[in-house]
């Protein structure tokens, strides 16, 4: 039986099935945002379009998201090197930066409201809320994932021979960071 399993494993593709599933999930998220951003482009090219400044806060949150990705990577490296206490610290730092990103987005929304750009109104404004909101929702799920990994780290379950979880978490987190960079650039350029 063991032999059979080994044989089966030998013959197939070498990616861990869970990680592979994670990548497929990322594909669906990419498609979701591809749809939303192309809707934005289509709408912008046809019709009444409101011009306004993007909140300054978006520049700051973009910075935060980059720092957060760096922390995530440090956590991953420490896991590889089996530095248990460092894993915990970096993971917590990632969570903290993640949460501050979300808070930052909320502040950005407030900035928009003060500017007179509301969720209900011209689609130009609504799109900014929707894009950042849907991204924020995914980021929130990323934070939950991070917390799960962090709890595992406190139970000594994350180390160099058990990397799958933290690898998946890192992949997702970097993806979400990259996604925000894309959205930020997209909004800045198509304005």
């Amino acid at each position: 039986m063991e032999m059979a399993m080994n044989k089966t494993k030998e013959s197939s593709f070498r990616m861990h099935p869970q990680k592979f599933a994670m990548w497929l999930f990322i594909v669906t998220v990419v498609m979701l945002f591809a749809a939303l951003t192309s809707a934005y482009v289509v709408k912008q090219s046809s019709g009444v379009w409101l011009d306004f400044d993007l909140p300054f806060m978006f520049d700051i949150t973009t910075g935060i998201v980059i720092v957060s990705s760096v922390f995530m990577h440090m956590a991953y490296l420490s896991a590889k090197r089996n530095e248990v206490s460092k894993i915990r610290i970096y993971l917590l730092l990632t969570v903290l930066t993640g949460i501050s990103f979300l808070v930052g987005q909320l502040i950005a929304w407030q900035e928009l409201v003060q500017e007179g750009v509301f969720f209900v109104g011209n689609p130009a404004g609504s799109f900014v809320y929707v894009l950042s909101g849907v991204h924020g929702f995914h980021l929130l799920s990323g934070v939950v994932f991070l917390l799960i990994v962090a709890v595992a780290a406190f139970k000594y379950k994350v180390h160099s021979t058990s990397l799958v979880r933290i690898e998946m978490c890192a992949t997702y987190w970097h993806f979400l960071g990259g996604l925000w960079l894309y959205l930020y650039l997209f909004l800045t350029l198509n304005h």
Partner: protein
Amino acid sequence: MAVTEVQLDEHVEHAAHDDHEHHGNFVTNYIFSQDHKVIGKQFLIAGIFWAIIGGGLSIIFRLQLGFPDMNLEWLRPLLGGWITESGKIDTEFYLALVTMHGTIMVFFVLTAGLSGTFSNFLIPLQIGARDMASGFMNMLSFWFFMLSSVIMFISLFISTGPAAGGWTIYPPLSALPQAISGSGLGMTLWLVSMVFFIASQLLGGINYISTIINLRTKGMSFTKMPLTIWAFFLTAILGLLSFPVLVAAALLLVFDRSFGTSFYLSDIFIGGEALPNSGGSPILFQHLFWFLGHPEVYIIIMPALGITSEIISTNSRKPIFGYRAMIGSLMGIGILSFVVWAHHMFVTGMSPFLGSIFMILTLIIAVPSAIKSFNYITTLWQGNIRFTSAMLFSIGLVSLFISGGVTGIFLGNSALDIFLHDTYFVVAHFHLVMGSSAFFGMVAGIYHWYPKMFGRMMDEKLGYIHFWLTFIGVYLVFFPLHYIGIAGFPRRYYSFTNFDAFSDFADLNMFVSVAAICTFGAQFIFLFNFFYSMYRGKKASLNPWDSNTLEWTTPREPGHGNWPGEIPTVYRWPYDYSKPGSESDFIPQTVPYTNTPESNLPHEAEEAKNEKV
């Protein structure tokens, strides 16, 4: 998209102790089962349930169309207030009926019922895997579908009625309860239900793809995979890429409906007041919707085409003609399906230049479809054909696919579409090419794999009767609709009595309705056969159709883990039927080339030298 955190169970550990049976309790074995075979059957039963509901709805509106003067008072116990005082169907409820018929058939029967059943059931069995990559995700996929089903079912019974703006839910009609009462709570439930449905599809699709890529048995290279698996694989990819777009479309619609944003709404005066929305575009929704919607019709038909390839080859006792061309055309259809969506929108006032681009792309997609049909026909040539019930339905599928396919050439031509758009011609077209074909594929699959699902055979004689009644019935229902369409009759009309131009064809409409009722009735023969054979059918042999694929190497009723011992190794493609030199007219995939020196082709003899058995 709501589901981000899905904890995968550890597949590898899980599979390592497969040969001792799992003795769970009833709940874990039959309800919250993680076994792909049980989940496949659950999808099948749910699909059959929805097919009866969806078919039943169509019978009700066919009564209205065929017998506009009939007193339908006797439906009052069922429909209650939707029957007016004069014994007629309420005009708004009529629209709800067509909407729900479309939604149920497209999503719940032909997507979940067909793809869900056979992808789940066949993928691990045909590629030689113990189970899906993640049994838990698979179970979740079914239960999200179930939740979505329950919500959609409830929406049929609310007082304002279910969604009634057409299954394509174009705003503003679907966004404004003032415009049609079904756009109130009914539409909300529709959207909620679809969110769960999409979650279910994505979970399923992720699972199918990762199973096919990661868990093939030794020797099962991509070029040795049965065409069923290729079809399921490409279908899952299409779903993964297109369903998120529907999420985006629905999300913006939800915001428009519930929060007052203006993505799709602009310049509307309704119910005596001007709405504040401005700057939106209803056409934007149509673009997003059809970006899913068009691949969706291929999500429906491709599994059926895969199933048919397998059945036609087995029962002609011949290899499928042009195995690579079959894969290539599936891929071609899959890729092209993403760049043709705007042919649903030729008359929305979109730029004529875009119209011509989409016309050209649309007609290109006819080429791979034609290749598939020709290849099926050539597979029959010089075969030794056994007409099992499954084979009959597969030949029926080819016929329907051609009949419905050729009318696509009219509709894809934007100049002709100006006249034919949204007429009964369209109804005839897609009911043949996508509705009936996919349905035939599903039924063929059930007849063919029933012995593996339930360990017993279905009654063949009843199968023949079921086929001939259904085949003739389907043609009698949908073929006349072409004439009605060419006469310019618009679809989704409650009755045609208000127009001089549409005063004719009452006789043909009545004929279609009678045919529809008979065809629907004939399906009960199938239902009887299905449930009766489950308990009283003849016990199946291990390989009743003398087929080559891996699922027939499992025990009569495969247990958890599918194969009691080692998973068999694959040495050859699945279509070695009637190979010259071979004693038997089929050589299963598990037979090495070294064992069949008498029938090996030159390049296979080469391969035999490198085989380690």
